[in-house]
């Protein structure tokens, strides 16, 4: 399976957004004084990290498949 240039472009954009989101939610989790929001922010930060890792794994898989 190949990755197109367009796909690579979107992957880069989304990874950049996800990285910012991780940083932003994690930072707010620390700054917030409301325990419920702290918990929610930190859970959402984890989910965004999950998105980042999922996309990265996908690209790695596709790149490996292409070598054989």
């Amino acid at each position, binding site marked *: 399976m190949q990755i197109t240039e367009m796909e690579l472009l979107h992957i880069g954009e989304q990874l950049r*957004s996800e990285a910012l989101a991780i940083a932003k939610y994690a930072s707010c989790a620390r700054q917030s004084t409301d325990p419920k929001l702290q918990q929610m922010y930190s859970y*959402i930060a984890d989910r965004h990290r999950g998105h980042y890792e999922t996309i990265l794994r996908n690209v790695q898989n596709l790149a490996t498949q292409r070598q054989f």
Partner: protein
Amino acid sequence: MLDEKDRLADFLVTQKYIAGGYNLAAMESSNTQLKETFMGILRDEHLIQHEIFNEMSNRGWYQAKPANLNDINQNLNKWNQELQRVQNTAYRQPGAQQGSYQNVFPQYGFQAGTGMQQMGNEAQQQGMYRPPQNPMA
């Protein structure tokens, strides 16, 4: 320094932006596996956005104004008429395959005034979209 309300509002905007990116990424993916991945994450972005919205709504920080019932009913009438008009136009075109679409169409339950009576119970309750049977399958 942003207060708690501003932070939540900012996250709503963030989620909207990220979800938009995934929608476009999924739409423009030719690789099936990648497209599925983008669509899966898009769904989670929507869920996150909704959780933030609910948090704001519960605190009275986001009040969405309910639509007027008269306006809803007026629009429903208009949209039902529009559907009738489009259906009539579509099926009267010369060369159109009469019947083939009509066999499939009632699954939507889109006839004016009938609601979703022809759908399964669960779909009827939830108002879920059910695509018609694919004639090419």
